[in-house]
C-alpha cells in the first residue's frame, strides 16, 4: 500500500496585508500603564535559551524596559536543555517561579495540550489599560500564527525570534579563480554553490576537503551538526536533511501518528534511508569536531573558516558574517537555499512540502505566573515595532514584516550576503516543526538510533527501521495513534 502524502505544516511568510493605521502611541504609555497598575518596583523573572536574540533581550531590552516602566526583568539565559527542564518543571508543578518563559516553536503544541500557558488575547481584553497602542498582531510575519491556538485563534506567545536554517558558503573560496579552475578541471563543471543533493553537494564537499588537504590548510568540505549524544544531531537530520530529501514531518504520518512505512509513515522509507546515508557520508568531509558539534560548535567551526559550506541557523549567520571579534570570515559569507533533492523545491512552491526549517520562538506567560500583568507589558514591549530593527541587525531574527525594509536591516543584509532578502523572499518555502503534542517524547525515542548511526553502531537503514518501529510502539503507549 502506498504511503499517504504527508501534510506539511503551514510555512510562515511575511504578512502581505498592510497594517491598519493605529492611533499614535502615547510617548509615556509604558511608564503610565505601569504606574496606574501599581507595577512599578515589580520584578519579573523569565527563562530563555542562551542564544543571540535572548542575550540582546537580556542585555539591552530588559534595561530599556526597566527605565520605561520601573519593572525589573530578570532574564535567565541558559542552555537549551536546562531551559526546557526548568520551565516545564515550573509549569507542571505550578510553582510560579517564572513570569514568562521561552517557547520554541516546536514545543508550543505540547504546552497548549497541557494548558501551560496564559491566553494573551483574553488577558489583553481583560486589562485594556495595559494594551500598548504600539503592539499590533498584524505587524508580525505569519510566524506568529504558530503561537495561536488553532481552534480559537487566541494568542499564547509573542514571537521574539524567527529565522531560517539556510545554506551558508565561503564566497571567497567559491569565487577564487584558482579554485574554480581546479574544480572545472576535476569535474568538468563550473564551481557553484550546490542546489541539489546528494551528488552535487557531495562533489563540492569532497573537492574542498581534498583541496584543504593538498594545500595543507584546515579546510573541510561541509559542516555536519552531528553531536552523537546531543539532540542537535537529531534535529539537523529531521528538520534539515529529511525535508531536503522530500521527507516531511519527521517521516511521521500526521493522521495516524505512525512512522514506519508498513504503517503509513516514511521514517524508514527509501528516501529517508538515502538521506541518512548521505548525511552520515558527509562526516568524511566535515571537520573532525563534527561528531561533537551541536548548533553552537557548527557556528564556531564556520566562523573559524574551517568549512567551505554547510547548514547554519540564521541567528548565527549575522555574527559569523559581520562580527570580526568572533569570526574569521567576515565579508566572505554567502547564503542560499538549502540544496534539495530533485522535485522537492517544486513541491515546496506548490505548498505540498518544504525545503528546510523555519525556526524561532516566543515569550509566553505560564498560567501559574505570579506577575502576569507586568509580564504582559514586557511581552508587548519586545513586540513593538521600534525595537525590531536593531534587534534584527544584532541577532539575525525578524518577526515583523516591516523590519525587512528598515535601512539598518538592509545594510546588514548586504553584509550577510543577502540573508534577510533570502528569508523575506523564500521564507514561505521553509516550515516550523510539525504540530506534535509529543515532540520531546518522539525525539527521545528516535534520537538514540541516530546517535548509534553516527557512531557506526548501526547502519543507516537499520537505525531508521529500528527508530520507526520504536516510535510505532511507544506513541500508542503515550496515547497517540492507537
Amino acid at each position, binding site marked *: 500500500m502506498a504511503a499517504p502524502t504527508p501534510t506539511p505544516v503551514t510555512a510562515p511568510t511575511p504578512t502581505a496585508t498592510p497594517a491598519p493605521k493605529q492611533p499614535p502611541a502615547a510617548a509615556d504609555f509604558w511608564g503610565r500603564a505601569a504606574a496606574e497598575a501599581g507595577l512599578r518596583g515589580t520584578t519579573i523573572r523569565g527563562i530563555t535559551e542562551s542564544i543571540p536574540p535572548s542575550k540582546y533581550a537580556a542585555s539591552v531590552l530588559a534595561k530599556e524596559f526597566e527605565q520605561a516602566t520601573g519593572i525589573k526583568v530578570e532574564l535567565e539565559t541558559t542552555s537549551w536543555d536546562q531551559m526546557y527542564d526548568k520551565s516545564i518543571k515550573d509549569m507542571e508543578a505550578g510553582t510560579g517561579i517564572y513570569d514568562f518563559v521561552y517557547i520554541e516553536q516546536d514545543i508550543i503544541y505540547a504546552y497548549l495540550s497541557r494548558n501551560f500557558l496564559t491566553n494573551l488575547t483574553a488577558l489583553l481584553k481583560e486589562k485594556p489599560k495595559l494594551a500598548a497602542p504600539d503592539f499590533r498582531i498584524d505587524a508580525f510575519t505569519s510566524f506568529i500564527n504558530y503561537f495561536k491556538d488553532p481552534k480559537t485563534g487566541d494568542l499564547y506567545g509573542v514571537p521574539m525570534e524567527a529565522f531560517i536554517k539556510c545554506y551558508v558558503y565561503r564566497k571567497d573560496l567559491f569565487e577564487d579563480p584558482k579554485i574554480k579552475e581546479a574544480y572545472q578541471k576535476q569535474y568538468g563543471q563550473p564551481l557553484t554553490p550546490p542546489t541539489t543533493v546528494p551528488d552535487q553537494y557531495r562533489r563540492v564537499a569532497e573537492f574542498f576537503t581534498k583541496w584543504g588537504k593538498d594545500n595543507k590548510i584546515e579546510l573541510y568540505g561541509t559542516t555536519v551538526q552531528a553531536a552523537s549524544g546531543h539532540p542537535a544531531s537529531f534535529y539537523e537530520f529531521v528538520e534539515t536533511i529529511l525535508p531536503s530529501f522530500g521527507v516531511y514531518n519527521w517521516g511521521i504520518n500526521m493522521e495516524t501518528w505512525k512512522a514506519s512505512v508498513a504503517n503509513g509513515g516514511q521514517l524508514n522509507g527509501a528516501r529517508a534511508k538515502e538521506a541518512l546515508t548521505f548525511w552520515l557520508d558527509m562526516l568524511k568531509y566535515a571537520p573532525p569536531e563534527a561528531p561533537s558539534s551541536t548548533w553552537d560548535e557548527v557556528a564556531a567551526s564556520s566562523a573559524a573558516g574551517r568549512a567551505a559550506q554547510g547548514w547554519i541557523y540564521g541567528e548565527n549567520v549575522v555574527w559569523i558574517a559581520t562580527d570580526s571579534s568572533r569570526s574569521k570570515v567576515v565579508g566572505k559569507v554567502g547564503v542560499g537555499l538549502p540544496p534539495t533533492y530533485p522535485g522537492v523545491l517544486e513541491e515546496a512552491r506548490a505548498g505540498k512540502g518544504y525545503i528546510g526549517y523555519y525556526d524561532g520562538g516566543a515569550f509566553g506567560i505560564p498560567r501559574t505566573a505570579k506577575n502576569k500583568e507586568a509580564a504582559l507589558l514586557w511581552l508587548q514591549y519586545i513586540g513593538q515595532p521600534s525595537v525590531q530593527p536593531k534587534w534584527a541587525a544584532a541577532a539575525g531574527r525578524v518577526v515583523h514584516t516591516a523590519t525587512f525594509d528598515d535601512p539598518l536591516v538592509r545594510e546588514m543584509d548586504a553584509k550577510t550576503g543577502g540573508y534577510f532578502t533570502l528569508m523575506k523572499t523564500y521564507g514561505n518555502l521553509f516550515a516550523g516543526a510539525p504540530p506534535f503534542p509529543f515532540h520531546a517524547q518522539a525525539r527521545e525515542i528516535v534520537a538514540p538510533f541516530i*546517535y548509534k548511526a553516527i557512531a557506526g553502531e548501526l547502519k543507516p537503514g537499520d537505525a531508521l527501521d529500528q527508530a520507526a518501529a520504536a516510535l510505532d510502539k511507544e506513541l500508542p503507549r503515550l*496515547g497517540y495513534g492507537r
Partner: protein
Amino acid sequence: MAQRPIWPARVGWGLLAPTLCILIITGLLPFLYVLYISFFDWNVFAAQGVPLFVGENNYRRLVFDDDFLGALWRTVQFTFWTVTIELVLGFILAQSLVKNFVGRGIFRTIHTLPLMVAPIVVGAIWRLLTIPGFGPIPHYLQQWFGVDYNIGRIATHAFWTTVLMDIWHWTPFVTLTFLGAFSSLPREPFEQAQVDGASTLQIHFYLTIPMTMPIILTTLFIRIMDALRTVDEVWMLTGGGPGSATRYIGIHIWRVVFPKTDYGYGAAMSLLVLYFTIVLCWLLFIVMTGKFKQIQ
C-alpha cells in the same frame, strides 16, 4: 538492682528529634514519593496527561529493557575500572606522601586541586582538552604519534577518556583518605616487622592493608557509590555519546525522567539502581571482610 540511666530515654529522643525530622523530610519522604510514582505510568505529555496506576509493570519492563540493561552494564564496567585504578594509584601516592621529600607540600597541593573543582567544570575542562579539531590532546596525539583520537566518533576513545577523567578527578580523594589512615598507624608493629626482616611487600600485605582495612572499605564504598551515579562530568564531556558508548545509568535515567518526562518509568529505574548499589556494596563487604566464608 538495675542501674538507672543518667538521662531518661525521652531526653535522648528529644535531642535526636530535629535530626530525625530533617532525615524524614529530606530523605524518607522523597524516597516514598519516588516509590509511589514508580507504580504509575506518568508522562506529562501523554494524551491522558494524568498518572495511570500500572502496578509493578514498570519494573517488569525494566528487566527486558535493553537500553536500561546496556546502560547499567556500561556503568558497572566504568565503575570497575575507575575504582580499581583509583584505589591502587591512591594507595601508592599515599605511601609516597607519607615519607618526607623535597617539594612534598607543593606536590600534595597540586595533587589535591582537582578535588576542589566542581564536576561540571571538570567535564568542561576535559571537553576543552579533548574536543577534536580544537583540543590540544587530539592535536598532539595526531602530530606526535599519528593517533586519530576522536571522542565524538570512536566509542572506545570516549569510554576510556571518561575513565581517565574520573581518575584525574577522584584519585586525590583516595590519596588523602589513605594518607590520613597511614599517618595514624602506630609505628611499633612496623618497626618490629623490620627488625624481624619482613620485606616491604610483606609489610604492606600483613600490616598496612589489614590495619587500614576499615578505611579502605569505606573509601571503596564511597567511590563505588559515586561512580555508579556519575552524571555531570560525563554529560559535559560526551553527552553520553558517541552512540551509547558513555550513556551511563545516571545519564540514561536523566534522559528518561527530564527530556522524555517519563516520570513513572524513571522512578522505577532509580529505585532499581539504588537497590543494585546496596546489594553490590553489601556483597563486596561480605567478601572483603571474610564473612562470606563464615556464612558458607
